[in-house]
C-alpha cells in the first residue's frame, strides 16, 4: 500500500473584510503535503478566520485557496471533503458515538456493512472500542475529543483542520492528547492545520508554526527557527519568554554577524543579528535561559554586575530578575533546579553574562 501523504494547501492573497474592517490582510502561504502546521496568535489575530475560510464557513473577500491544485473558493463546505475538529467537539448529542462517526459515511452513501466496519476500525484507532453505543454526554472530555477526531477522520480526508481542539481539557490530559493526535496524523497520513493560542502546544506538535497578529502573518518557521531567530519583538515575546532591551545605537563588531549595540542608558553590548538603523522599534532580545550567573560567567561576551530583585521557584526552574548596575535594565534569568540547589537571595549582588550569539536584534513593536 502506498503511504498517503496528505494534501498541499496554497493560500494566495487570501483576504477577509467585514465592511470597512479588514480581519485578514492579503495572506499568501503554502502548506506542504503531510505537514503539521500550527497557527498561533492572540484573540482577534485572524487565525480562526483563516481556518473558517479553509473550511468554507467564511466567504473570501479576495484571493484564492487551492487544495492539491483545486481552487476551493466556490466549493461549499460540504463538498470540500476535509475534516474539522472543533474546540467544543460539536458532537451530535442526539446520536450515539457510533452514529456520530457513521454520519459522514452515511452522507457519502456508503453501504451498511462498509460503514460498520469503518466505524469499528476507527473506534479501535482512538481506543474507544466498545463505547459505540454510548451517548456523547456519557463520555469524559478526553473521550469526546477522540470521538470528534474519529468522526473527522473516518472518511480519510487529506486535510484535517483543528480549532483549539484541546482548549477545554485539563493540562495532563492535554499533553496526552497532543501525543495521540500526532500519532493519529501519522497513521492517517494527512495534512493538519492546527489553530491554538497555546505556544507550548504549537511548538510540541507542529512541523512549522505561523504566528499571526492583527490580521496578518508575523513570521513562519519551525519551532526552533521562531524561538532562536524571532524576526520581531512580538514573535520573541509571544513564543517563550524574552527580555527586550531598548537600543539606541548599532555598529558593526569584530566578528562576522557580530554587532556592537548601545542600550538605552549607555551600556555597550555585543550582539548578533541583522544590522539596522537604531530606532524605538529595535530591541535586543535575550532569552532567560541563555543568561548565566556567576561563577558561570567567565569567558562570556557580555558580563555585568547586577542586583537580584526577586526570585520565583517554579517546577523545574527558578526565575530570577536582576537589575544591571550600569543602566537600570531589568533582566529575566531562568536557571534549572535540582535537589540541593543553593538559591540566591533578593538583594544579593551578582555577576550576570551572556554570549553575543544569544543576544539578537529584533525589529517591530
Amino acid at each position: 500500500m502506498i503511504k498517503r501523504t496528505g494534501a498541499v494547501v496554497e493560500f494566495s492573497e487570501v483576504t477577509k473584510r467585514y465592511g470597512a474592517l479588514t480581519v485578514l490582510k492579503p495572506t499568501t502561504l503554502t502548506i506542504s503535503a503531510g505537514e503539521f502546521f500550527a497557527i498561533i496568535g492572540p484573540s482577534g489575530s485572524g487565525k480562526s478566520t483563516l481556518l473558517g475560510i479553509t473550511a468554507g464557513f467564511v466567504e473570501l473577500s479576495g484571493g484564492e485557496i487551492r487544495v492539491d491544485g483545486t481552487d476551493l473558493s466556490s466549493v461549499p463546505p460540504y463538498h470540500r471533503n476535509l475534516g474539522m475538529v472543533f474546540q467544543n467537539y460539536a458532537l451530535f448529542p442526539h446520536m450515539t458515538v457510533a452514529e456520530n462517526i457513521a454520519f459522514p459515511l452515511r452522507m457519502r452513501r456508503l453501504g451498511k456493512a462498509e460503514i460498520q466496519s469503518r466505524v469499528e476500525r476507527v473506534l479501535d484507532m482512538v481506543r474507544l472500542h466498545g463505547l459505540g453505543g454510548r451517548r456523547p454526554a456519557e463520555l469524559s472530555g478526553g473521550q469526546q475529543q477522540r470521538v470528534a477526531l474519529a468522526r473527522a477522520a473516518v472518511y480519510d480526508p487529506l486535510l484535517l483542520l483543528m480549532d483549539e481542539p484541546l482548549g477545554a481539557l485539563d493540562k495532563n490530559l492535554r499533553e496526552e492528547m497532543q501525543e495521540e493526535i500526532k500519532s493519529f496524523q501519522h497513521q492517517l497520513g494527512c495534512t493538519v492545520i492546527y489553530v491554538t493560542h497555546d505556544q507550548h502546544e504549537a511548538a510540541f506538535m507542529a512541523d512549522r508554526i505561523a504566528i499571526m497578529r492583527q490580521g496578518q502573518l508575523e513570521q513562519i518557521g519551525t519551532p526552533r527557527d521562531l524561538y532562536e531567530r524571532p524576526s520581531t519583538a512580538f514573535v520573541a515575546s509571544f513564543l517563550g519568554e524574552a527580555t527586550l532591551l531598548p537600543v539606541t545605537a548599532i555598529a558593526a563588531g569584530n566578528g562576522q554577524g557580530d554587532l556592537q549595540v548601545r542600550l538605552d542608558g549607555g551600556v555597550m553590548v555585543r550582539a548578533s543579528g541583522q544590522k539596522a538603523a537604531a530606532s524605538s522599534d529595535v530591541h535586543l532580545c535575550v532569552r532567560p535561559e541563555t543568561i548565566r550567573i556567576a561563577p558561570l560567567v567567565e569567558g562570556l561576551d557580555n558580563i555585568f554586575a547586577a542586583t537580584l530583585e526577586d526570585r520565583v521557584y517554579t517546577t523545574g526552574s527558578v526565575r530570577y530578575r536582576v537589575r544591571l548596575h550600569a543602566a537600570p535594565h531589568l533582566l529575566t534569568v531562568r536557571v534549572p533546579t535540582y535537589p540541593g540547589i543553593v538559591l540566591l537571595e533578593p538583594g544579593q549582588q551578582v555577576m550576570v553574562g551572556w554570549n553575543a550569539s544569544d543576544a539578537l536584534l529584533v525589529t517591530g513593536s
Partner: protein
Amino acid sequence: MTGSLWRVVGTGFSAFAVLVLIFLVLPTLVIVPLSFSSATFLSFPPPGWSLQWYEGFANSLDYRIAILNSIKIGIPAALLATIFGTLAALALVRGNVAGRRALSALMIAPLILPQIVLAIGLFPIMVKLGIVGSYPAILLGHAVLCLPLVFITVAASLKSYAPSIELAAMTLGANPWNTFRFVTFPMIRVGVVVGFIFSFTFSFDELILAIFLTSPATRTVPRLLWEHLNYQMTPVIAAATVVLLVLTLSLLVVAALVNRSSASGRVRGANEGAT
C-alpha cells in the same frame, strides 16, 4: 432576632403567593360545580347535582359542529404557524439577516398587541378578498396569532446549543437540507412540537378573531359559548366550558411532558456543546 424576623417575612411572602394563585385559579374553577348543577340557570352555589347539562352538551348539534369547526380551524392554523414560525426562527437565530433584533420584535408583536387591533385590521382585508366567514379567513388570522408562539419555542431550542454542531455537519458532508434533517430538526423537535400544541390550544380558545371572521357555518366553540351567553344562560355553557378547559389543560400537560422527557435526555449534551 433578625433570623426569626426574616422567617416571618418569608412566611408572609409564601402565604401571599398562595393567595395570588388561588385568586388566579379559583374563578376558573367555579365553573366546574356550576356544570353539575340541577338548576336550569347559572347560579352559585348549585341547589343540587345532575349530569343533565353534559347530556345536553353531548346531544347538541350546534356544539358538535362548533367542536368540529374548532378542530378544522385549529389544526391547519397550528400547522401553518409551525411551518412559518420555525422558518422565521431559523432565519433570525441562525441566519445572517440584517436588523434581526427589530425583526424578532416584530415576530412577537401579534402576541403582545391587543387581538382586537388585529381583528379590526383583518376584517376589511378579508371583506375585500371576499372570504369573511369562510375557513381560510379565520384560519389565516389564527395562524398569524400563533406564529409568535412557535417562533419563541423554536428560537429557544436553537439558542440552547452551539451553532458549531451545524457547521460540523457541513464539514462532514451534509448539504443544507441534510444538515436540517439529521441535525437541526432533531435538536429543535421539542420546540416545534410544543409550539404546535401551544398554537392549537390558543386557536381552540380564541374568541375575538372568531367573532369578527367566522360565520354561523364556521363558528368555533368559544364563539358559540359567547353567543349562548347572550341569549340563554343555561348550565350547558358551563358543561361546554369544562370540556374545553379539560381539553386545553391536558394538551398543555402533554406539552410539558414532551418538554421534560427531552430535557432530561438532552440538556446534558446541549450543555457540553455550549462550553
